[in-house]
């Protein structure tokens, strides 16, 4: 119960702070829209080319916008040395990790809703027919990205070259997740059934479990520095 209360406290605090400052949401939304404009201008009305590269573009937009948010998730704790106060409050520090992870999932979920809506609007792509399966891939993929992103966000929060180091550390670790989500999305948007991508979904589930457990096990050590 105490762990749940601590986790909820972190999520509640991050949501309230973000709702008031709007720093991360504004940056992420602006970046997503900008990316879509670039994609639209590059591909124009070429439907064949668009169909081929759509899964990659979709996840590229989600990933790049997500990187902005994930990298900033612990910057808030750096201000006024709140990180120190989190450390000095007795109790399981894993709650900070889970709370930040849930906050990042909320943020990335918001990004995905907007990116999907903009893709549908700008590129005239029908994602509705692939929706139940695509939602599952989005959920599993986002969990994997957020799990590693939250951990590395904490790891690099106090590093001077944070903006450079964060993606350099994160992206190689995310290769299995990125591979699985792009391949699954490609198949689902092409109209294949969910059963045809079950091997990719298994990989995503395995990666998610490993990343979340690794985050929970190492976060205490990370916070203690």
């Amino acid at each position, binding site marked *: 119960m105490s762990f749940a209360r601590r986790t909820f*406290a*972190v999520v509640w*605090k991050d949501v309230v702070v973000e709702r008031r400052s709007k720093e991360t949401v504004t940056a992420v939304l602006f970046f997503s829209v900008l990316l879509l404009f670039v994609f639209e201008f590059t591909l124009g009305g070429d439907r064949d080319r668009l169909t081929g590269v759509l899964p990659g573009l979709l996840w590229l937009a989600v990933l790049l916008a997500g990187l902005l948010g994930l990298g900033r998730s612990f910057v*808030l704790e750096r*201000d006024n*040395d709140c990180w*120190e*106060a*989190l450390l*000095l409050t007795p109790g399981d520090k894993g709650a900070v990790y889970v709370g930040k992870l849930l906050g990042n999932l909320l943020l990335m979920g918001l990004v995905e809703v907007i990116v999907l809506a903009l893709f549908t609007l700008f590129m005239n792509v029908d994602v509705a027919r692939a929706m139940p399966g695509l939602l599952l891939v989005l959920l599993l993929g986002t969990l994997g990205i957020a799990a590693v992103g939250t951990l590395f966000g904490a790891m690099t929060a106090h590093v001077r070259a944070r903006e450079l180091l964060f993606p350099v550390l994160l992206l190689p670790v995310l290769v299995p997740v990125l591979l699985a989500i792009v391949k699954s999305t490609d198949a689902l948007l092409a109209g294949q059934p969910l059963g045809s991508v079950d091997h990719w979904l298994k990989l995503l589930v395995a990666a998610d479990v490993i990343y979340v457990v690794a985050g929970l096990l190492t976060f205490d050590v990370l916070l203690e520095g």
Partner: protein
Amino acid sequence: MIGLTTSDPLIQVSGLRKAYGTTLVLDGVDLVVRPGEAVGLLGPNGAGKTTLLKILATVARPARGTATIAGHDCAREAERVRGVVGLLAHGTHLYDDLTALENLTFWTRFAGRRPDPDALRAVLAEVELDDCAEARVRTFSAGMKRRLSLARLLLGQPRVLLLDEPFSSLDQRARKWVEHYLEGFTAGGGAILMATHALGRELDVATRLVILANGRIILDAPRGALGADEIHRLYALHTEEAS
């Protein structure tokens, strides 16, 4: 606090050494602070005051020697130490975009307790911030933030306060308030270790003065035995000798 009597030391430091790279910051520090004592820790910049506080607060680890708070080892029993110690550091430990009440609500929840808005408002009243309960911390003056930081510490009901420059950025009224609060804290059986540069009236809170220079304690004397001029003379004498 198993097995502790009311006269057992709340802070006990023995042979403490700490180095950052090749720079030795603490070089064999010994210190005992008992319940009801407020120790003023004086020393020039780089003397090791903040490092000593951080080791006692379990933020940093010593290279050698031991430090205990209420009988718990700061390095090996960090979580137990954190349950009885409160650190007022340079950072406010507050979120600027939350209100005063929301900050206290967050830290109460994060400590695993259910927040009671009336009790939290009473704590805010204790630090004379009840009128600003719904105002964002971003709009607070430095003194108000300092008082809210103290209110945050009160939530944990610590027995030991570690204070780093507690009077910085405070006006006369706020200083008096903090002095009054700290006197009440020691009268209730708590112990205070207070690092400061100030050699003036702020030291009236202290029952003992300790001068730290070049990582060593070079003076440890009861506050009552020293007048204001004497403190200035000894501080200048010992810190110049040490350097």
